[in-house]
């Protein structure tokens, strides 16, 4: 595991570099600007988006707060239809289970549609080490894998790359002719991947939802790669976090449109597929075996915190990333996590350790754009605050503690506060002498910003000196 100092330092270094990269900013703002327009248009079509959010939050609350019951119902319904359910406490068990299954089936080639849980447990690395050929079929993931980096965004993995960069990548890795046309680039990937679906021995997918009532998983996608991955190979393995379960099939009637609208500005995503078992008697195709892996991997730790339990309501739409000014400035790779943006900052502290990952909760202006965007009403920006508080409580930083004690003392003593204002006014005249040098006490602020000037007369003094100011004009009756 990465030592704490590295994770936060890496974040700082990468953030500084990316936020100064104007091309990056342009690419991201163009992509997300178009998204915002479509999203607002689709939200406006709802009769009552606010009530829909509340309803979705209620359903998730019910599911997460009775998770044991719904998971058991899901597993028994699925097992009754010939599906196999594997419960994994930790990521390593997922890799072992899949590798064992692949060995037992004599598999060579494994095709995958997008599964963030597999990124979380580093499944591809584990399978390749065992000698299996693993191919990502989601176009964005495919590109990111060829490029040799992790996803930039858990919904739009290759959002940061331009068509030119992708063309160069394809030229180098696949030997194709350079092109500036996104359609041609897509068709190159289509041709390569078609052959993979038709010959793969195992298909691995994620799941956006699981339905307790019917023992189904639900997969949302635009490309059709998940449909092919789950239709053609003889074995289908779905990996999902335990928090994905919903009580009823009919609950999807609200979650599918909301996921599409909040996540990508669509009324409904291209394909929303529900899979409830392997091929059944009387059906013409589909895998012979269907395995569902239920992954805990510290989710129960988050569940044990009632204050932040609603972070498990997350449907991974990515809306909070899209609207986050920090995410948009520092970019997805700076986080160094599987889940980026506000939701990533909140849950990574639970999934991978608070002290190591608390810096992500500090990297926020607490503007609350994430909370307003969340379709299931997760109180994201307050959870960032909760993480800060919990981190400080568990491992106080001595100078922060002194600073806050001094601050509290001054605020408790008006005379001191007034004196501080006066002293500050005079002291700032000396500030230019040390401005932006190592001696500057406000250097972390002034390095990239101008310090606000302290006025000679405080607002309070002004108010007392001008009794007429700001008072309502006398009423004429």
């Amino acid at each position, binding site marked *: 595991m990465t030592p704490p100092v590295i994770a936060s330092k890496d974040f700082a270094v990468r953030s500084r570099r990316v936020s100064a990269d104007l091309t990056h900013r342009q690419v991201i703002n163009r992509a997300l600007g178009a998204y915002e327009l479509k999203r607002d248009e689709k939200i406006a079509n709802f009769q*009552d988006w606010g*009530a829909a959010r509340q309803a979705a939050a209620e359903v998730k609350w019910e599911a997460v707060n009775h998770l*044991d019951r719904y998971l058991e119902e899901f597993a028994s319904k699925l097992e009754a239809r010939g599906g196999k359910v594997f419960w994994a406490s930790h990521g390593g068990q997922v890799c072992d289970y899949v590798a064992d299954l692949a060995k037992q089936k004599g598999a060579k080639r494994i095709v995958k549609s997008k599964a963030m849980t597999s990124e979380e447990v580093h499944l591809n690395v584990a399978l390749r080490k065992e000698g299996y050929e693993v191919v990502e079929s989601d176009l964005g993931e495919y*590109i990111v894998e060829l490029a040799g980096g992790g996803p930039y965004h858990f919904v739009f993995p290759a959002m940061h790359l331009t068509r030119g960069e992708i063309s160069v990548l394809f030229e180098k890795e696949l030997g194709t002719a350079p092109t500036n046309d996104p359609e041609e680039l897509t068709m190159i990937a289509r041709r390569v991947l078609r052959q993979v*679906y038709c010959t793969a021995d195992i298909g691995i997918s994620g799941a956006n939802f699981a339905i307790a009532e019917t023992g189904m998983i639900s997969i949302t996608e635009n490309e059709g790669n998940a449909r092919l991955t789950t*239709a053609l190979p003889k074995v289908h393995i779905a990996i999902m976090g335990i928090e994905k379960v919903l009580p009823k099939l009919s609950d999807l*009637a609200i979650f599918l449109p909301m996921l599409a609208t909040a996540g990508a500005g669509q009324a*409904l995503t291209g394909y929303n597929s529900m899979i409830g078992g392997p091929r059944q008697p009387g059906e013409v*195709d589909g895998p012979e075996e269907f395995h569902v892996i239920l992954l805990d991997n510290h989710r129960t730790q988050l569940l044990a915190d009632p204050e932040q339990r609603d972070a498990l309501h997350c449907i991974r739409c990515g809306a909070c990333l899209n609207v986050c000014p920090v995410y948009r400035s520092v970019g997805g790779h700076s986080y160094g996590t599987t889940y980026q943006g506000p939701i990533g900052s909140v849950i990574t502290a639970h999934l991978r350790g608070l002290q190591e990952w608390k810096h992500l909760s500090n990297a926020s202006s607490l503007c609350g754009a994430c909370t307003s965007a969340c379709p299931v009403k997760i109180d994201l920006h307050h959870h960032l605050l909760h993480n800060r508080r919990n981190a400080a409580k568990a491992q106080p930083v001595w100078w922060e503690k002194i600073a806050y004690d001094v601050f509290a003392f001054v605020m408790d003593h008006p005379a001191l506060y007034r004196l501080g204002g006066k002293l500050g006014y005079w002291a700032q005249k000396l500030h230019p002498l040390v401005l932006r040098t190592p001696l500057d006490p406000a250097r972390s602020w002034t390095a990239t910003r101008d310090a606000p000037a302290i006025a000679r007369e405080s607002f309070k003094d002004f108010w007392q000196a001008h009794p007429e100011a700001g008072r309502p004009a006398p009423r004429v009756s």
Partner: protein
Amino acid sequence: MSDREKILGRIRDALRVPAPRPGVHGGASLDQAEDASRRAVPDYSDWLPIVGKTFAERSALFARNAAELKAEFFVLADERELPGRLAQLAAGNGWKRIATHRGSLTGLALQGSTLPVGYTDEGYQVADMEASDAGLTECEALVAQTGSVLVSSLSSGGRALSVLPPHHVVVARASQMLADLSEAFALLKVKYGENYPSFLSFISGPSRTGDIERILVLGAHGPKRLTIFCLP
């Protein structure tokens, strides 16, 4: 102890302390939260986009949605038009082979057709289906609110037929036009009870991607075209 028991045990331990309901802060509840939780069976249709009650309204809405999704939607006045329309598509696009499943509507569509046809009903070779120019299927329902086609492994010739060939052609009846997803799930429950098909999918337009600079490209992995015929 198995991991199943371990995980369920951790969940039960974790849930001993209750979490506040959504929209409830510091013991005070917001009006909206109370309203939603008071409803025993929430009717999602009240909050989703408006859908008309008549077939004419619904099919107009479906047509608008289909146009936005770049799907082709045709309401035929007479079912006898269907074989001609399909032949036109086949000729216009130079189809050499078509894959389908046996059914009254697919049968009707192929009346008089001389194209080689592969049926999935008795099993099929993936390579043959991949080499077909079109997949012709029936469906469970059409969903007006989202312009979607609901297919299933039982109604639409299996899992792959509606996604592997580059052009997906759907034939439906006007009576299959439903308002929204809630109606579609209700229909499935009545039709199948506990015995659902192993695969269901709401298809909204041809396969698409925006993974390169968020620019829309059709035919990412699945069909590049989706044509829907609605018969009376």
